[in-house]
């Protein structure tokens, strides 16, 4: 049963039913939750998309980027700056943000993909720090460490404003949902299977005639673009962008979300993201030592759940199936 579920391309029927129930639940959430929890749910969706975008690299292509916040932040800054300085509405500013993230990912990808392993880790981290350095140093443009306040909530035109929290929640649900749907389709496509092939054996894929470099770059740009979408949504959610968006900690956090949830599953990183967002909010209410707690979680995940939550559940099911 488990084995067939892992191998077969068509998911089992209960998964479809579960998806429908989940979507319905998310649609009625604004009726049930206070504004605080609605905001929390909105954040969870944004970071779920962010984590899923990184999973395309880590889980499917086998490339661990330590600088994924760069694309999140670049898109956020681009959208924020265009909305503030040129008064662009969401229809223009959001695609522009995505374009900026894609462009940066293409540029950084060309450099970073010349290397492998630890070099790749270091270079992606270093490149993201370049962006952080520019954001915090170029005061006249980015406001330096103070960031850019008062980014307006999107206005869709036709009298539809997303100023209210519930309306904005639905906007994020739609955008993040669309992003997640596209990612699911991408990993299930022949392209997605080629990425898995590269993860397993680059030399074999080369021998089979795949243009591995181009596939890697395409995955890198796609991952950057979806991270950018999360960044755009986050700047509209916070109505604020600062160099914090680009910090190493943010890149490290999204990496944790992916691994804690289960790399290579998409649903896992989404769960991981929701958990970390929840934990951060709950723990920050009691203590200022969130970073300490986060550090401990890193080590615990490495020691006890290296395959993540989804991997753990699968192992459990496999055991039960075998006995």
């Amino acid at each position, binding site marked *: 049963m488990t084995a067939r579920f892992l191998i077969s391309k068509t998911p089992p029927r209960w998964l479809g039913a579960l998806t429908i129930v989940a979507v319905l639940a998310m649609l009625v959430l604004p009726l049930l939750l206070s504004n605080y929890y609605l905001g929390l749910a909105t954040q969870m969706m944004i970071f779920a998309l962010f984590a899923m975008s990184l999973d395309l690299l880590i889980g499917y292509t086998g490339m661990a980027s330590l600088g994924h916040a760069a694309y999140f932040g670049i898109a956020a800054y681009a959208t924020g700056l265009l909305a503030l300085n040129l008064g662009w509405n969401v229809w223009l500013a959001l695609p522009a943000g995505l374009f900026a993230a894609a462009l940066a990912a293409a540029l950084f990808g060309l450099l970073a993909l010349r290397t492998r392993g*630890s070099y790749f*880790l270091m270079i992606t981290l*270093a490149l993201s720090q370049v962006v952080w350095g520019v954001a915090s140093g170029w005061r006249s443009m980015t406001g330096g460490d103070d960031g850019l306040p008062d980014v307006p909530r999107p206005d869709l035109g036709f009298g539809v404003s997303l100023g209210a929290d519930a309306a904005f929640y639905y906007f994020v649900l739609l955008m993040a949902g669309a992003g997640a749907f596209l990612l699911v389709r991408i990993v299930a496509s022949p392209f997605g299977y080629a990425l898995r092939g590269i993860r397993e054996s680059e030399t074999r894929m080369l021998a089979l005639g795949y243009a591995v470099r181009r596939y890697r770059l395409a995955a890198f740009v796609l991952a950057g673009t979806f991270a950018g979408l999360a960044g755009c949504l986050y700047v509209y959610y916070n109505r604020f962008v600062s160099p914090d968006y680009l910090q190493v900690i943010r890149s490290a956090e999204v990496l944790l979300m992916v691994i804690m949830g289960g790399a290579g599953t998409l649903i896992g990183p989404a769960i991981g993201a929701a958990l970390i967002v929840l934990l951060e909010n709950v723990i920050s209410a009691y203590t200022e030592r969130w970073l300490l707690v986060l550090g401990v979680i890193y080590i615990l995940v490495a020691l006890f759940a290296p395959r993540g939550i989804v991997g753990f559940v699968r192992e459990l099911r496999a055991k039960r199936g075998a006995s």
Partner: protein
Amino acid sequence: MTFWLVQTLNGISFGMLLFLLAAGLSLIFGLMKILNLTHGSFYLLGGYLGLLVLHRTGSFVLAVLAASLAIAVVGVVIERFFLRRFHLQELPQVLVTFGFLFIFSDLTTLIWGGNPQTMPKPEMFANSLQLGSFFYPSYRLFIIGFGLVVAVLLWWLQEGTRIGAMVRASVDDEEVARALGINVSLLFTLVFALGAFLAALGGVMGGPIVGVYPGADFEVLLLGFVVVIIGGLGSLKGALAGGLIVGLLDNFGKVFFPELALFTIFAPMVLILAVRPAGLFGRE
């Protein structure tokens, strides 16, 4: 002319601190293929512990020795009990070393607060020396000399001693080295401890120049990365050359383009990356 000389000396002395940091990073990677993200913490913890000992005893030498040895022990614990089980597993290694980076970062803020601390220079080097037409702080000259001595010692350790030969053998072929009876796992611990020792040494020695402050762990980790990306990971020569290059670039960048200081380091890094992805002295 004086301006150029002073700034060059400033850059070289800072570069020597970066060398201490990057040498450890490089040694650890060279032998175990671990990218140690906790390395910046070793530097910062070394600085704070050095301050502690200095305040208690008033002896700079004691501060340097005690702090570096204590951090070497921390390194042994991390290697033995946490990294050991993840040999050649990149992602768990990244998680563990990230975890300790965050834990130490938060602990140091908790214990020593958010304000930068200054470390007094050792009395012997508190003065300035006259170099031709200008005066220059003798402590910075001492750092340059000290860095060179460490470089020679490390080179001798690697090329001239039995332990160095064992390390080189393990770098080349770990399995054969094990089969020959070399205790590779002990070497791992020793080299990791040495790396932590060097980073802490940089933290204490650098205290009187750059201060000891929260966030320095992330900052020097990044600079260390740039050094080994430029010089080549796993190479001592690369760590020295890269350290000096980055030290000079950083110093002149801050003087000439204060708004884009980081850029003067990263632009050359990107250039080298495009031409030689493995760095100046790295193995392809």
